[in-house]
């Protein structure tokens, strides 16, 4: 055992992998299997064999598109997906240690439903649930619900003040959404169920709390219909690329995923997040910062590079991503992660370019390399996701208020 700071690792699961031509690889799951429980179970079992902290499951209400803000008519890409929170629930009884973090949109969903969904995921996984809230900023997505109009968004307008105002508004709503979800998780104290035969009471209703949230976007009375989940507060994981989402993560998340392109970019982002965290009144609270990579892994670096080229050719364009791309050997990736971690990161979420190849590369190539360097666990230390992330089980805000 080493006293070096341990790196946390997560895998981001989506379709056949993150490269658009991943589904065409010889070892890829047949297209018909991408929608179905067995394929997901294989992936999460691989991630668990690699002792990863958690997997995230991507989601969205729109059919996937290569365009930024509109549907496309491509026929050469993976299209169609299942609800991520239900995939996670389907995997929970068949896994034992790994955290399950589905993506759930905040913009078009009810905080009350999301709260009990994640709480219940925490019950069916006995303490391994997390949640990645995601903003849905696109007009075509709003049209699926017909409840609100969002302006058409263009990638070239992202820096414009009007566009920034829309985005800020959506993230404000997301922050309210997370706040309501968190309050609802706390709306039952842990020992509210008493089953007291003498008085005939099933619960002590003094230990149930109306959350009475009133915001600009919605009001929610509470309490939840679902008791406080096993972890108390399942970890909230936020992906952030700029100041508005950094502030959202600083206010609302337990883990923030960032995409610095090089190690020098890490410190300024972390500093901005810490400052926002203090501004949100969370100074000293543990907020883990993870970096992101898309990974192509082969023992011989040239093989990884050649594979990326071959995939790019099949896809018709060089693969680009919001996250930095790594193509090389597991040992080289281990060195790179160690170096980046020293610049201020607690861990990494890795996006396998293809599945199963690069997910196997993470679990069976990278992880042993990190273990050899004394940077990664040799076994799960805890049964809960919070436990493995080193997050204590939080006190209930309402119990504290009453005490």
């Amino acid at each position, binding site marked *: 055992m080493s006293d070096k700071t341990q790196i946390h690792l997560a895998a981001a699961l989506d379709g056949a992998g993150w490269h658009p*031509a991943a*589904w*065409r690889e010889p070892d890829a799951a047949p*297209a*018909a299997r991408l*929608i*179905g*429980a067995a394929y997901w179970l294989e992936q999460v079992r691989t991630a668990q064999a690699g002792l990863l902290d958690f997997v995230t499951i991507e989601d969205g*209400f*729109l*059919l*996937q598109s290569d365009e930024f803000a509109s*549907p496309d008519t*491509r*026929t*050469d890409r993976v*299209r*169609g*997906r*299942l*609800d991520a929170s*239900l*995939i996670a*629930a*389907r995997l*929970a*009884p*068949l896994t034992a240690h790994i955290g399950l973090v589905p993506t759930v949109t905040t913009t*078009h969903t*009810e905080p*009350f*439903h999301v709260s*009990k*969904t994640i709480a*219940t*995921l925490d*019950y*069916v996984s006995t303490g391994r649930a997390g949640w990645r809230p995601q903003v849905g900023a696109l007009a075509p*997505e709003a*049209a*699926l*619900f*017909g409840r609100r109009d969002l302006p058409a968004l263009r990638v070239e307008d992202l820096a414009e003040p009007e566009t920034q105002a829309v985005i800020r508004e959506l993230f404000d709503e997301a922050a309210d959404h997370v706040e309501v979800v968190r309050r609802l998780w706390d709306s*039952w104290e842990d020992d509210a*169920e008493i*089953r007291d*035969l003498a008085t*005939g*009471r*099933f*619960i002590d*209703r003094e230990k*149930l709390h109306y959350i009475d949230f009133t915001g600009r976007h*919605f*009001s*929610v009375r509470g309490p939840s*219909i*679902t*008791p406080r989940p096993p972890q108390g507060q399942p970890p909230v994981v936020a992906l952030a690329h700029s100041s508005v989402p950094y502030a959202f993560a600083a206010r609302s998340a337990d883990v923030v995923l960032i995409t610095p392109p090089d190690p020098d970019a890490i410190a300024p982002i972390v500093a901005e997040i810490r400052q926002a965290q203090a501004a949100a009144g969370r100074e000293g609270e543990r907020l883990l910062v993870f970096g992101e990579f898309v990974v192509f892994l082969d023992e011989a670096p040239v093989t990884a590079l050649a594979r990326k080229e071959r995939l790019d050719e*099949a896809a018709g364009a060089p693969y680009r991503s919001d996250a930095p791309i790594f193509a090389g050997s597991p040992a080289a990736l281990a060195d790179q992660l160690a170096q980046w971690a020293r610049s201020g990161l607690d861990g990494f979420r890795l996006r396998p370019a293809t599945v199963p190849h690069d997910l196997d590369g993470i679990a069976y190539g990278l992880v042993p390399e990190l273990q050899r360097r004394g940077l990664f666990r040799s076994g799960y230390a805890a049964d809960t996701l919070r436990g493995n992330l080193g997050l204590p089980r939080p006190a209930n805000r309402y119990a504290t208020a009453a005490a």
Partner: protein
Amino acid sequence: MTDSGKPLKQIHLAAHFPGVNNTTVWSDPRSGSHIEFESFRRFAQTAERALFDFLFLAEGLRLREQNGLIYDLDVVGRPDTFTVLAALAAVTDRLGLAGTINSTFNEPYEVARQFATLDHLSAGRAAWNVVTSWDAFTGENFRRGGYLPQEHRYERARSFLHAALTLFDSWHGDEISGDENTGEFLTDPEPGRFTVRDAFFDIEGQFNVPRSPQGRPVIFQAGDSDEGREFAAAEADAIFSRHGTKDAGQAFYSDVKGRMAKYGRDPDQLKVLPAATFVLADTDAEARELAEAVRFQQVSGQTAIRMLEQLWNRDLSGYDPDGPLPESDPELGEHTVARGRASVRMHRDPLATAREWRELAQAKGYSIRELIIHVTGRQNFIGSPRTIADAIDDLVQSDAADGFILVPHITPDGLDQFADNVVPLLQEKGVFRTEYAGSTLREHLGLHPLPVGDSTARTAAPEGATA
């Protein structure tokens, strides 16, 4: 064959994991958690061992209150329906997985996605009990708040269901080719395209879940009103009813099935499934004794007063449950005492019901508690395994039902006795499966496979024949 020469009907059985009412005797030491997944797993695996058609979960989106306080005498709290059903799909292989999902506090796109997902993750075992509500009390937990005029709720529910059916049907099942050599993943550049425009919804785009194994979840309906029955006759694959006795059951059965012809539907394609409680013992006499004891456990003195308040619509906490009924009449008008509870709405004529209850109490010398024990929720089936098997079979063969949704009073193990002792007798009679013949819930229920496009065709032309 029966004596009348009619072929024997096959019985359908389902298990309802009890919700938050006084059916569950939580004070019994055998009573387990209503939240931990282990309880659901055990309950589901017993139902599957017994070859039941499906497991059913009810829903309530606000904790019940009485006299302005959270109701604390019954089980309180439940997990999320979709999430539990998806997890149960992992620990069962054939059992249908049915849940109530409210059409008032959800949006069609999201619900359709969740059911299509559940159907994929369970390989064709999902079912949706479409319910509708209108109370502002529950609405306080949601964005829209509360709200729907009562007369619009079935209209909106139908619109909601039609929107969801349109989404389920927006993929035809042949869009994904996945040819890695040519690079063609999709045969259709715009799969899942849909538009729904009516008085309640204005939505369009592309649905993003490919067609699920059953095409859509099996559709259940539970309302007993005239609109509810019509809705079921037009749209549903199964209807939950409250009519467990022979006469009432037969009347309901023929009424609902009689409404189907005008929608071009075969009466066999709507299963009538009353909810039923049971008390089993070695002999009928023991079962009767046990049933009485269970009723006393289900209705404590406090519970009796609370249930009386639900009819009287005012605070009766000063009354002695072992004493006589109140002399005064119920408060009429809006229910203010008990909130978040469907049963209060069943008291359609509180004055008449109060009069009946008083007369009965006087004639029998009942206290408040004894009266409530006798007028609410008596068990449907009480007896030895043989007696119960005969009763169930008789009700099904005489067209009072197509089967039953059983609700045990002990969770999660209350179903085991039924599985071990009654199911074998039904199998001996040749009226219940000895193995699952199919893998999907539609197959278990004897529902015809859905041709692609069927649901929208029927929606568009309710008077026409099905495809």
